[in-house]
Protein backbone atom coordinates (compact mmCIF):
# COMPACT_ATOMS: atom_id res chain seq x y z
CA UNK A 1 0.00 0.00 0.00
CA UNK A 2 1.30 3.42 -0.88
CA UNK A 3 -1.05 5.21 1.50
CA UNK A 4 0.26 5.38 5.02
CA UNK A 5 -2.48 4.98 7.61
CA UNK A 6 -2.70 6.53 11.00
CA UNK A 7 -4.23 4.01 13.40
CA UNK A 8 -5.97 5.41 16.44
CA UNK A 9 -8.10 3.83 19.10
CA UNK A 10 -11.50 5.39 19.55
CA UNK A 11 -14.81 4.67 21.16
CA UNK A 12 -17.83 4.40 18.98
CA UNK A 13 -21.33 5.01 20.16
CA UNK A 14 -23.65 2.12 19.37
CA UNK A 15 -26.81 3.27 21.05
CA UNK A 16 -28.53 3.17 24.38
CA UNK A 17 -28.96 -0.06 26.23
CA UNK A 18 -32.17 -1.04 27.94
CA UNK A 19 -30.95 0.24 31.24
CA UNK A 20 -30.39 3.67 29.69
CA UNK A 21 -26.58 3.62 29.96
CA UNK A 22 -24.42 4.53 27.05
CA UNK A 23 -22.79 1.54 25.47
CA UNK A 24 -19.35 2.33 24.19
CA UNK A 25 -17.25 -0.06 22.15
CA UNK A 26 -13.60 0.25 21.46
CA UNK A 27 -12.69 0.39 17.75
CA UNK A 28 -9.70 1.13 15.61
CA UNK A 29 -10.02 3.99 13.12
CA UNK A 30 -7.72 4.32 10.13
CA UNK A 31 -7.06 7.83 8.89
CA UNK A 32 -4.88 8.26 5.79
CA UNK A 33 -1.88 10.52 6.31
CA UNK A 34 -0.97 10.90 2.66
CA UNK A 35 -2.74 13.71 0.90
CA UNK A 36 -4.08 13.45 -2.62
CA UNK A 37 -3.17 16.54 -4.64
CA UNK A 38 -4.57 16.70 -8.14
CA UNK A 39 -2.37 18.60 -10.60
CA UNK A 40 -4.44 19.21 -13.70
CA UNK A 41 -6.34 18.74 -15.95
CA UNK A 42 -6.52 22.54 -15.72
CA UNK A 43 -3.48 23.91 -13.95
CA UNK A 44 -1.18 26.92 -14.43
CA UNK A 45 1.85 24.62 -14.69
CA UNK A 46 0.33 22.61 -17.52
CA UNK A 47 -0.25 24.04 -20.93
CA UNK A 48 -2.35 21.13 -22.08
CA UNK A 49 -4.83 18.94 -20.23
CA UNK A 50 -3.14 16.16 -18.25
CA UNK A 51 -4.03 14.84 -14.81
CA UNK A 52 -1.34 14.03 -12.26
CA UNK A 53 -2.77 12.60 -9.06
CA UNK A 54 0.00 13.18 -6.56
CA UNK A 55 -0.15 11.41 -3.20
CA UNK A 56 1.99 13.26 -0.73
CA UNK A 57 3.17 12.40 2.75
CA UNK A 58 3.75 15.87 4.10
CA UNK A 59 5.72 17.49 1.31
CA UNK A 60 7.19 14.25 0.00
CA UNK A 61 5.61 12.59 -3.00
CA UNK A 62 4.83 8.92 -2.36
CA UNK A 63 2.91 8.05 -5.51
CA UNK A 64 1.91 9.65 -8.78
CA UNK A 65 -0.95 8.44 -10.96
CA UNK A 66 -1.02 9.79 -14.49
CA UNK A 67 -4.42 10.06 -16.13
CA UNK A 68 -4.69 10.99 -19.78
CA UNK A 69 -7.46 11.15 -22.35
CA UNK A 70 -8.64 14.73 -22.01
CA UNK A 71 -7.44 15.70 -25.44
CA UNK A 72 -8.36 12.75 -27.61
CA UNK A 73 -9.53 13.77 -31.06
CA UNK A 74 -9.66 10.48 -32.98
CA UNK A 75 -6.95 11.43 -35.43
CA UNK A 76 -6.03 7.85 -36.30
CA UNK A 77 -9.62 7.15 -37.30
CA UNK A 78 -9.63 10.32 -39.34
CA UNK A 79 -6.67 9.01 -41.34
CA UNK A 80 -8.68 5.93 -42.30
CA UNK A 81 -11.63 7.97 -43.49
CA UNK A 82 -9.69 10.37 -45.69
CA UNK A 83 -7.43 9.73 -48.64
CA UNK A 84 -3.66 9.50 -48.43
CA UNK A 85 -2.99 13.08 -49.46
CA UNK A 86 -5.47 14.59 -47.03
CA UNK A 87 -3.62 12.56 -44.41
CA UNK A 88 -0.49 14.65 -44.98
CA UNK A 89 -2.34 17.69 -43.63
CA UNK A 90 -4.13 15.74 -40.92
CA UNK A 91 -0.82 14.36 -39.62
CA UNK A 92 0.54 17.92 -39.39
CA UNK A 93 -2.42 18.86 -37.18
CA UNK A 94 -1.66 16.21 -34.56
CA UNK A 95 0.75 18.60 -32.90
CA UNK A 96 1.35 22.26 -33.55
CA UNK A 97 4.91 22.56 -32.32
CA UNK A 98 6.23 19.43 -34.03
CA UNK A 99 4.05 19.46 -37.15
CA UNK A 100 6.84 19.09 -39.71
CA UNK A 101 8.23 15.90 -38.18
CA UNK A 102 4.76 14.36 -38.17
CA UNK A 103 4.20 15.32 -41.80
CA UNK A 104 7.69 14.15 -42.78
CA UNK A 105 7.29 10.74 -41.17
CA UNK A 106 3.88 10.21 -42.77
CA UNK A 107 5.10 11.40 -46.16
CA UNK A 108 8.10 9.08 -46.03
CA UNK A 109 5.69 6.24 -45.27
CA UNK A 110 3.67 7.04 -48.41
CA UNK A 111 6.89 7.26 -50.38
CA UNK A 112 7.77 3.77 -49.16
CA UNK A 113 4.41 2.51 -50.44
CA UNK A 114 4.75 4.34 -53.75
CA UNK A 115 8.44 3.60 -54.27
CA UNK A 116 9.17 7.29 -54.75
CA UNK A 117 12.50 8.89 -54.03
CA UNK A 118 12.61 12.67 -53.44
CA UNK A 119 15.36 14.72 -55.02
CA UNK A 120 18.47 15.69 -53.13
CA UNK A 121 17.40 19.34 -52.88
CA UNK A 122 13.99 18.37 -51.53
CA UNK A 123 15.59 16.20 -48.87
CA UNK A 124 17.86 19.05 -47.78
CA UNK A 125 14.89 21.44 -47.57
CA UNK A 126 12.92 18.96 -45.50
CA UNK A 127 15.77 18.74 -43.01
CA UNK A 128 15.96 22.54 -42.94
CA UNK A 129 12.26 22.83 -42.04
CA UNK A 130 12.56 20.14 -39.37
CA UNK A 131 15.68 21.64 -37.80
CA UNK A 132 14.19 25.13 -37.67
CA UNK A 133 11.28 23.56 -35.89
CA UNK A 134 13.58 21.77 -33.47
CA UNK A 135 15.20 25.09 -32.53
CA UNK A 136 11.91 26.81 -31.75
CA UNK A 137 10.50 23.77 -29.98
CA UNK A 138 13.52 23.57 -27.69
CA UNK A 139 13.34 27.31 -27.07
CA UNK A 140 9.68 27.19 -26.11
CA UNK A 141 10.12 24.37 -23.59
CA UNK A 142 13.07 26.14 -21.99
CA UNK A 143 10.94 29.29 -21.83
CA UNK A 144 8.13 27.33 -20.18
CA UNK A 145 10.63 25.90 -17.71
CA UNK A 146 11.67 29.45 -16.80
CA UNK A 147 8.01 30.36 -16.36
CA UNK A 148 7.39 27.35 -14.11
CA UNK A 149 10.35 28.42 -11.97
CA UNK A 150 8.72 31.83 -11.57
CA UNK A 151 11.30 33.49 -13.80
CA UNK A 152 8.87 35.24 -16.11
CA UNK A 153 11.39 37.77 -17.40
CA UNK A 154 13.44 34.99 -18.92
CA UNK A 155 10.29 33.44 -20.36
CA UNK A 156 9.47 36.69 -22.16
CA UNK A 157 13.02 37.13 -23.42
CA UNK A 158 13.27 33.60 -24.85
CA UNK A 159 9.86 33.94 -26.49
CA UNK A 160 10.97 37.25 -28.01
CA UNK A 161 14.05 35.69 -29.57
CA UNK A 162 12.07 32.66 -30.69
CA UNK A 163 10.33 34.99 -33.15
CA UNK A 164 13.52 35.07 -35.27
CA UNK A 165 13.13 31.35 -35.89
CA UNK A 166 9.39 31.64 -36.46
CA UNK A 167 10.05 34.32 -39.06
CA UNK A 168 12.64 32.08 -40.74
CA UNK A 169 10.08 29.31 -40.84
CA UNK A 170 7.50 31.68 -42.30
CA UNK A 171 9.93 32.69 -45.04
CA UNK A 172 10.74 29.06 -45.83
CA UNK A 173 7.34 27.38 -45.63
CA UNK A 174 4.71 30.12 -45.87
CA UNK A 175 3.26 29.44 -42.45
CA UNK A 176 4.54 30.69 -39.13
CA UNK A 177 3.66 27.56 -37.16
CA UNK A 178 1.96 24.96 -39.36
CA UNK A 179 4.33 24.44 -42.25
CA UNK A 180 2.33 22.24 -44.65
CA UNK A 181 5.63 21.92 -46.47
CA UNK A 182 5.77 18.19 -47.21
CA UNK A 183 4.32 16.22 -50.07
CA UNK A 184 5.24 12.72 -51.30
CA UNK A 185 8.08 13.13 -53.78
CA UNK A 186 9.40 16.46 -52.57
CA UNK A 187 8.40 19.69 -50.91
CA UNK A 188 5.72 22.24 -51.76
CA UNK A 189 7.73 25.41 -52.28
CA UNK A 190 11.32 26.27 -53.04
CA UNK A 191 13.75 28.87 -51.68
CA UNK A 192 15.48 31.43 -53.86
CA UNK A 193 18.66 33.39 -53.06
CA UNK A 194 16.81 36.31 -51.44
CA UNK A 195 14.94 34.04 -49.07
CA UNK A 196 18.10 32.08 -48.35
CA UNK A 197 20.01 35.21 -47.34
CA UNK A 198 17.15 36.43 -45.18
CA UNK A 199 16.98 33.12 -43.32
CA UNK A 200 20.76 33.15 -42.86
CA UNK A 201 20.57 36.69 -41.42
CA UNK A 202 17.88 35.60 -38.97
CA UNK A 203 19.91 32.57 -37.91
CA UNK A 204 22.94 34.81 -37.41
CA UNK A 205 20.87 36.88 -34.97
CA UNK A 206 19.63 33.75 -33.18
CA UNK A 207 23.02 32.18 -32.48
CA UNK A 208 24.34 34.66 -29.83
CA UNK A 209 20.99 34.55 -28.09
CA UNK A 210 21.01 30.75 -27.88
CA UNK A 211 24.58 30.78 -26.55
CA UNK A 212 23.63 33.42 -23.98
CA UNK A 213 20.63 31.48 -22.71
CA UNK A 214 22.57 28.25 -22.54
CA UNK A 215 25.19 29.95 -20.37
CA UNK A 216 22.42 31.49 -18.26
CA UNK A 217 20.80 28.12 -17.62
CA UNK A 218 24.15 26.72 -16.54
CA UNK A 219 25.18 29.55 -14.22
CA UNK A 220 22.15 31.46 -12.95
CA UNK A 221 21.46 30.43 -9.33
CA UNK A 222 17.70 31.03 -9.76
CA UNK A 223 17.62 28.22 -12.28
CA UNK A 224 20.34 25.89 -11.03
CA UNK A 225 19.02 25.81 -7.45
CA UNK A 226 15.70 24.48 -8.68
CA UNK A 227 16.95 22.12 -11.38
CA UNK A 228 20.15 20.46 -10.20
CA UNK A 229 19.55 17.02 -8.61
CA UNK A 230 15.82 17.21 -9.24
CA UNK A 231 14.21 14.34 -11.10
CA UNK A 232 17.40 12.33 -11.48
CA UNK A 233 17.04 9.43 -13.92
CA UNK A 234 19.73 6.76 -13.97
CA UNK A 235 20.52 5.12 -17.33
CA UNK A 236 18.89 1.96 -15.95
CA UNK A 237 15.57 3.80 -15.42
CA UNK A 238 15.65 5.05 -18.98
CA UNK A 239 16.07 1.64 -20.55
CA UNK A 240 13.68 -0.01 -18.08
CA UNK A 241 10.83 2.42 -18.76
CA UNK A 242 11.58 3.04 -22.42
CA UNK A 243 12.07 6.78 -22.27
CA UNK A 244 13.23 8.43 -25.49
CA UNK A 245 14.68 11.60 -26.91
CA UNK A 246 16.37 14.38 -24.94
CA UNK A 247 15.23 12.70 -21.70
CA UNK A 248 17.32 9.64 -22.57
CA UNK A 249 20.20 11.70 -23.89
CA UNK A 250 20.21 13.74 -20.66
CA UNK A 251 21.03 10.53 -18.78
CA UNK A 252 23.86 9.43 -21.02
CA UNK A 253 21.93 7.02 -23.26
CA UNK A 254 23.07 7.47 -26.84
CA UNK A 255 19.87 7.27 -28.84
CA UNK A 256 18.94 9.49 -31.75
CA UNK A 257 16.92 8.34 -34.76
CA UNK A 258 18.69 10.89 -36.94
CA UNK A 259 22.01 9.21 -36.28
CA UNK A 260 20.69 5.65 -36.33
CA UNK A 261 18.52 5.84 -39.45
CA UNK A 262 20.15 8.68 -41.41
CA UNK A 263 16.81 9.37 -43.10
CA UNK A 264 16.27 12.31 -45.48
CA UNK A 265 19.53 14.22 -45.80
CA UNK A 266 20.85 13.50 -42.32
CA UNK A 267 23.36 11.09 -43.83
CA UNK A 268 24.99 13.91 -45.79
CA UNK A 269 24.97 16.59 -43.09
CA UNK A 270 27.56 16.51 -40.36
CA UNK A 271 26.24 16.84 -36.81
CA UNK A 272 26.97 15.59 -33.32
CA UNK A 273 24.66 13.72 -30.99
CA UNK A 274 24.37 15.72 -27.78
CA UNK A 275 24.65 13.60 -24.65
CA UNK A 276 24.80 14.73 -21.02
CA UNK A 277 25.46 12.21 -18.28
CA UNK A 278 24.10 13.93 -15.16
CA UNK A 279 20.51 12.78 -15.64
CA UNK A 280 18.82 15.58 -13.69
CA UNK A 281 16.37 18.21 -14.93
CA UNK A 282 19.16 20.66 -15.73
CA UNK A 283 20.94 18.09 -17.90
CA UNK A 284 17.75 17.60 -19.94
CA UNK A 285 17.35 21.33 -20.46
CA UNK A 286 21.02 21.70 -21.43
CA UNK A 287 20.66 18.84 -23.92
CA UNK A 288 17.92 20.92 -25.54
CA UNK A 289 20.04 24.09 -25.69
CA UNK A 290 23.00 22.18 -27.12
CA UNK A 291 20.75 20.51 -29.68
CA UNK A 292 19.29 23.85 -30.69
CA UNK A 293 22.83 25.12 -31.31
CA UNK A 294 23.64 21.97 -33.25
CA UNK A 295 20.47 22.41 -35.33
CA UNK A 296 21.45 26.01 -36.04
CA UNK A 297 24.78 24.76 -37.37
CA UNK A 298 22.96 22.26 -39.58
CA UNK A 299 20.59 24.93 -40.92
CA UNK A 300 23.51 27.16 -41.84
CA UNK A 301 25.26 24.25 -43.53
CA UNK A 302 22.12 23.38 -45.54
CA UNK A 303 21.55 26.95 -46.68
CA UNK A 304 25.14 27.32 -47.86
CA UNK A 305 25.42 23.86 -49.42
CA UNK A 306 21.95 23.52 -50.97
CA UNK A 307 22.18 21.16 -53.98
CA UNK A 308 20.72 22.20 -57.31
CA UNK A 309 17.73 20.47 -58.82
CA UNK A 310 13.98 20.22 -58.73
CA UNK A 311 12.53 20.26 -55.22
CA UNK A 312 8.87 21.11 -55.79
CA UNK A 313 6.65 18.19 -56.72
CA UNK A 314 3.70 18.57 -59.07
CA UNK A 315 0.84 17.37 -56.89
CA UNK A 316 -1.49 16.88 -59.85
CA UNK A 317 0.64 14.04 -61.18
CA UNK A 318 0.74 11.95 -58.00
CA UNK A 319 -1.30 8.73 -58.21
CA UNK A 320 -4.54 8.76 -56.24
CA UNK A 321 -4.61 5.01 -55.57
CA UNK A 322 -1.64 3.54 -53.75
CA UNK A 323 -0.48 -0.07 -54.07
CA UNK A 324 -1.27 -2.39 -51.14
CA UNK A 325 1.49 -2.76 -48.61
CA UNK A 326 2.85 -1.68 -45.29
CA UNK A 327 5.24 1.08 -44.37
CA UNK A 328 7.04 1.77 -41.14
CA UNK A 329 8.92 5.00 -40.72
CA UNK A 330 10.47 6.75 -37.78
CA UNK A 331 11.85 10.13 -37.11
CA UNK A 332 13.56 12.05 -34.34
CA UNK A 333 11.01 14.62 -33.23
CA UNK A 334 12.12 17.40 -30.86
CA UNK A 335 10.76 15.22 -28.03
CA UNK A 336 12.16 11.89 -29.14
CA UNK A 337 11.46 9.02 -31.45
CA UNK A 338 8.26 9.27 -33.49
CA UNK A 339 7.00 6.34 -35.55
CA UNK A 340 4.27 5.89 -38.14
CA UNK A 341 2.93 2.56 -39.29
CA UNK A 342 0.79 2.77 -42.43
CA UNK A 343 -1.15 -0.10 -44.02
CA UNK A 344 -2.44 0.46 -47.53
CA UNK A 345 -5.11 -1.89 -48.90
CA UNK A 346 -4.75 -0.92 -52.56
CA UNK A 347 -7.30 1.88 -52.38
CA UNK A 348 -7.11 5.63 -52.10
CA UNK A 349 -7.43 5.47 -48.31
CA UNK A 350 -5.08 3.86 -45.79
CA UNK A 351 -6.43 0.81 -43.99
CA UNK A 352 -4.72 1.77 -40.76
CA UNK A 353 -2.33 4.43 -39.58
CA UNK A 354 -0.70 3.94 -36.21
CA UNK A 355 1.09 6.87 -34.67
CA UNK A 356 3.41 6.43 -31.73
CA UNK A 357 4.63 9.68 -30.30
CA UNK A 358 7.56 10.33 -27.93
CA UNK A 359 5.50 12.02 -25.22
CA UNK A 360 3.48 8.85 -24.86
CA UNK A 361 6.56 7.09 -23.48
CA UNK A 362 8.02 10.00 -21.63
CA UNK A 363 4.91 11.02 -19.72
CA UNK A 364 2.96 7.82 -19.11
CA UNK A 365 6.02 5.86 -18.00
CA UNK A 366 7.48 8.61 -15.86
CA UNK A 367 5.37 8.15 -12.72
CA UNK A 368 8.26 6.56 -10.87
CA UNK A 369 10.55 9.56 -11.26
CA UNK A 370 8.56 11.93 -9.03
CA UNK A 371 8.88 9.77 -5.93
CA UNK A 372 10.89 11.22 -3.08
CA UNK A 373 10.78 14.81 -4.31
CA UNK A 374 8.58 17.56 -2.94
CA UNK A 375 5.27 18.64 -4.47
CA UNK A 376 6.85 21.89 -5.68
CA UNK A 377 9.27 19.82 -7.78
CA UNK A 378 6.53 17.92 -9.62
CA UNK A 379 5.80 20.64 -12.24
CA UNK A 380 9.55 21.13 -12.75
CA UNK A 381 10.14 17.43 -13.39
CA UNK A 382 7.10 17.21 -15.64
CA UNK A 383 8.17 20.17 -17.76
CA UNK A 384 11.70 18.79 -18.03
CA UNK A 385 10.17 15.83 -19.93
CA UNK A 386 8.70 18.29 -22.46
CA UNK A 387 5.10 17.03 -22.34
CA UNK A 388 3.15 17.30 -25.56
CA UNK A 389 -0.30 16.08 -24.64
CA UNK A 390 -1.96 16.68 -27.99
CA UNK A 391 0.63 14.32 -29.51
CA UNK A 392 0.13 11.49 -27.11
CA UNK A 393 -3.65 11.09 -26.83
CA UNK A 394 -4.09 7.96 -28.94
CA UNK A 395 -6.54 5.86 -26.91
CA UNK A 396 -9.88 4.89 -28.36
CA UNK A 397 -12.95 6.28 -26.60
CA UNK A 398 -15.31 3.40 -25.85
CA UNK A 399 -18.09 5.18 -24.01
CA UNK A 400 -19.02 8.73 -23.28
CA UNK A 401 -20.78 10.30 -20.34
CA UNK A 402 -24.27 9.79 -21.77
CA UNK A 403 -26.17 6.53 -22.01
CA UNK A 404 -24.94 6.04 -25.55
CA UNK A 405 -22.29 3.35 -25.86
CA UNK A 406 -19.98 2.84 -28.79
CA UNK A 407 -18.52 -0.61 -29.17
CA UNK A 408 -15.08 -1.25 -30.56
CA UNK A 409 -16.64 -3.34 -33.33
CA UNK A 410 -18.75 -0.35 -34.44
CA UNK A 411 -15.70 1.86 -34.59
CA UNK A 412 -13.84 -0.76 -36.61
CA UNK A 413 -16.72 -1.05 -39.06
CA UNK A 414 -17.24 2.67 -39.51
CA UNK A 415 -15.47 3.39 -42.77
CA UNK A 416 -12.20 1.94 -43.74
CA UNK A 417 -9.98 2.28 -46.78
Amino acid at each position, binding site marked *: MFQKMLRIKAFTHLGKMQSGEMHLTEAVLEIPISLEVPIGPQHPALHEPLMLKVYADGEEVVKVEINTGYNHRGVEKLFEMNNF*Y*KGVFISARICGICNTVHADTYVRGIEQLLGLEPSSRARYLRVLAMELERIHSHMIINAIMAEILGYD*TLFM*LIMRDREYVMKAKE*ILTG*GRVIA*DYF*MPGGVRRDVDDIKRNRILDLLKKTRPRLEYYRKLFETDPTITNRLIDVGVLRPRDITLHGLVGPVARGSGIKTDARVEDRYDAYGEIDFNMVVHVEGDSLARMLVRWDEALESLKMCEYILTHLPEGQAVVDE*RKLPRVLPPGEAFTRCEAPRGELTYYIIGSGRDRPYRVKVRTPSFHNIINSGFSYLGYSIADVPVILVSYDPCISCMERAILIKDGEKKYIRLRDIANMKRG
Partner: protein
Amino acid sequence: MSLWREILKNVFKKPVTIEYPKVETPIEIDFRGLQYADLNKCNGCTLCALECPSKAIEMRKLPENVKLKHNPRGLYPVINYPSCVFCYRCVTICPVNAYVTTNEYRLATETEKLLSDTLSLKTLKSEGS
Protein backbone atom coordinates in the same frame (compact mmCIF):
# COMPACT_ATOMS: atom_id res chain seq x y z
CA MET B 1 25.92 35.65 -14.24
CA SER B 2 22.44 36.98 -14.04
CA LEU B 3 19.88 38.70 -16.17
CA TRP B 4 20.35 42.21 -14.71
CA ARG B 5 22.38 43.61 -17.58
CA GLU B 6 19.87 42.28 -20.11
CA ILE B 7 16.93 43.70 -18.18
CA LEU B 8 18.54 47.14 -17.81
CA LYS B 9 19.29 47.20 -21.52
CA ASN B 10 15.66 46.46 -22.31
CA VAL B 11 14.37 49.20 -20.03
CA PHE B 12 15.75 51.83 -22.38
CA LYS B 13 14.65 50.10 -25.56
CA LYS B 14 11.41 50.43 -27.45
CA PRO B 15 8.95 47.59 -26.91
CA VAL B 16 9.37 44.70 -29.34
CA THR B 17 5.66 44.11 -29.56
CA ILE B 18 3.78 45.62 -32.47
CA GLU B 19 1.00 48.12 -31.79
CA TYR B 20 -1.20 46.21 -34.14
CA PRO B 21 -4.03 48.43 -35.38
CA LYS B 22 -1.68 51.44 -35.71
CA VAL B 23 1.26 49.51 -37.18
CA GLU B 24 0.79 46.68 -39.65
CA THR B 25 2.27 43.31 -38.83
CA PRO B 26 5.20 42.52 -41.12
CA ILE B 27 4.06 39.57 -43.19
CA GLU B 28 5.67 37.70 -46.06
CA ILE B 29 4.42 38.22 -49.61
CA ASP B 30 3.92 34.48 -50.07
CA PHE B 31 2.40 33.84 -46.65
CA ARG B 32 -0.53 31.44 -46.96
CA GLY B 33 -3.39 33.91 -46.55
CA LEU B 34 -6.90 33.80 -47.93
CA GLN B 35 -7.37 32.44 -51.44
CA TYR B 36 -10.27 32.52 -53.86
CA ALA B 37 -11.08 31.16 -57.29
CA ASP B 38 -10.66 33.27 -60.41
CA LEU B 39 -13.86 32.55 -62.32
CA ASN B 40 -12.27 33.45 -65.63
CA LYS B 41 -10.20 30.26 -65.30
CA CYS B 42 -12.27 27.96 -63.07
CA ASN B 43 -14.07 25.23 -64.99
CA GLY B 44 -16.07 23.89 -62.06
CA CYS B 45 -14.32 20.50 -61.92
CA THR B 46 -14.94 20.14 -58.12
CA LEU B 47 -11.47 18.63 -57.52
CA CYS B 48 -10.61 21.24 -54.87
CA ALA B 49 -13.82 20.48 -52.96
CA LEU B 50 -13.03 16.76 -53.03
CA GLU B 51 -9.42 17.22 -51.95
CA CYS B 52 -9.97 19.77 -49.18
CA PRO B 53 -8.76 18.19 -45.89
CA SER B 54 -11.12 20.29 -43.76
CA LYS B 55 -14.12 20.11 -46.12
CA ALA B 56 -14.21 23.91 -46.28
CA ILE B 57 -14.99 24.21 -49.98
CA GLU B 58 -18.54 24.04 -51.24
CA MET B 59 -19.40 24.06 -54.96
CA ARG B 60 -22.21 26.51 -55.65
CA LYS B 61 -24.19 27.32 -58.77
CA LEU B 62 -23.18 30.48 -60.59
CA PRO B 63 -25.73 33.32 -60.56
CA GLU B 64 -28.35 32.86 -63.26
CA ASN B 65 -27.27 35.84 -65.32
CA VAL B 66 -23.70 34.51 -65.59
CA LYS B 67 -23.06 32.02 -68.37
CA LEU B 68 -19.47 30.92 -68.89
CA LYS B 69 -18.30 28.95 -71.91
CA HIS B 70 -15.38 27.27 -70.13
CA ASN B 71 -17.60 26.29 -67.16
CA PRO B 72 -20.36 24.07 -68.60
CA ARG B 73 -21.65 22.81 -65.24
CA GLY B 74 -21.98 26.35 -63.92
CA LEU B 75 -20.31 25.58 -60.57
CA TYR B 76 -17.76 27.58 -58.66
CA PRO B 77 -15.97 26.92 -55.33
CA VAL B 78 -16.91 28.91 -52.25
CA ILE B 79 -14.46 28.62 -49.38
CA ASN B 80 -15.77 28.77 -45.84
CA TYR B 81 -12.83 30.65 -44.32
CA PRO B 82 -13.58 29.88 -40.66
CA SER B 83 -13.13 26.16 -41.34
CA CYS B 84 -10.28 26.57 -43.87
CA VAL B 85 -6.85 25.51 -42.55
CA PHE B 86 -4.94 27.38 -45.29
CA CYS B 87 -2.95 24.38 -46.43
CA TYR B 88 -3.27 25.52 -50.07
CA ARG B 89 -4.06 22.02 -51.27
CA CYS B 90 -6.81 23.53 -53.48
CA VAL B 91 -4.26 25.90 -55.00
CA THR B 92 -1.74 23.20 -55.85
CA ILE B 93 -4.26 20.59 -57.02
CA CYS B 94 -6.20 22.91 -59.38
CA PRO B 95 -5.76 21.66 -62.98
CA VAL B 96 -6.23 25.15 -64.48
CA ASN B 97 -4.41 27.18 -61.76
CA ALA B 98 -7.59 29.11 -61.10
CA TYR B 99 -6.83 30.14 -57.52
CA VAL B 100 -5.69 33.64 -56.64
CA THR B 101 -3.52 33.65 -53.51
CA THR B 102 -3.05 36.57 -51.16
CA ASN B 103 -1.20 37.10 -47.90
CA GLU B 104 -4.28 38.47 -46.19
CA TYR B 105 -4.52 36.95 -42.72
CA ARG B 106 -7.12 39.31 -41.22
CA LEU B 107 -10.33 37.44 -41.87
CA ALA B 108 -12.73 39.54 -39.82
CA THR B 109 -14.92 41.57 -42.10
CA GLU B 110 -17.83 43.92 -41.53
CA THR B 111 -19.40 43.70 -44.92
CA GLU B 112 -19.21 40.88 -47.40
CA LYS B 113 -15.95 42.33 -48.67
CA LEU B 114 -13.75 39.40 -47.73
CA LEU B 115 -16.00 36.43 -48.40
CA SER B 116 -14.92 33.88 -50.95
CA ASP B 117 -17.99 34.18 -53.20
CA THR B 118 -17.80 38.00 -53.27
CA LEU B 119 -14.12 37.90 -54.17
CA SER B 120 -14.65 35.22 -56.82
CA LEU B 121 -17.56 36.99 -58.48
CA LYS B 122 -15.60 40.23 -58.45
CA THR B 123 -12.94 38.66 -60.69
CA LEU B 124 -15.63 38.11 -63.29
CA LYS B 125 -16.80 41.70 -63.27
CA SER B 126 -13.30 43.13 -63.58
CA GLU B 127 -12.86 41.26 -66.84
CA GLY B 128 -16.23 42.54 -68.05
CA SER B 129 -17.50 39.25 -69.39
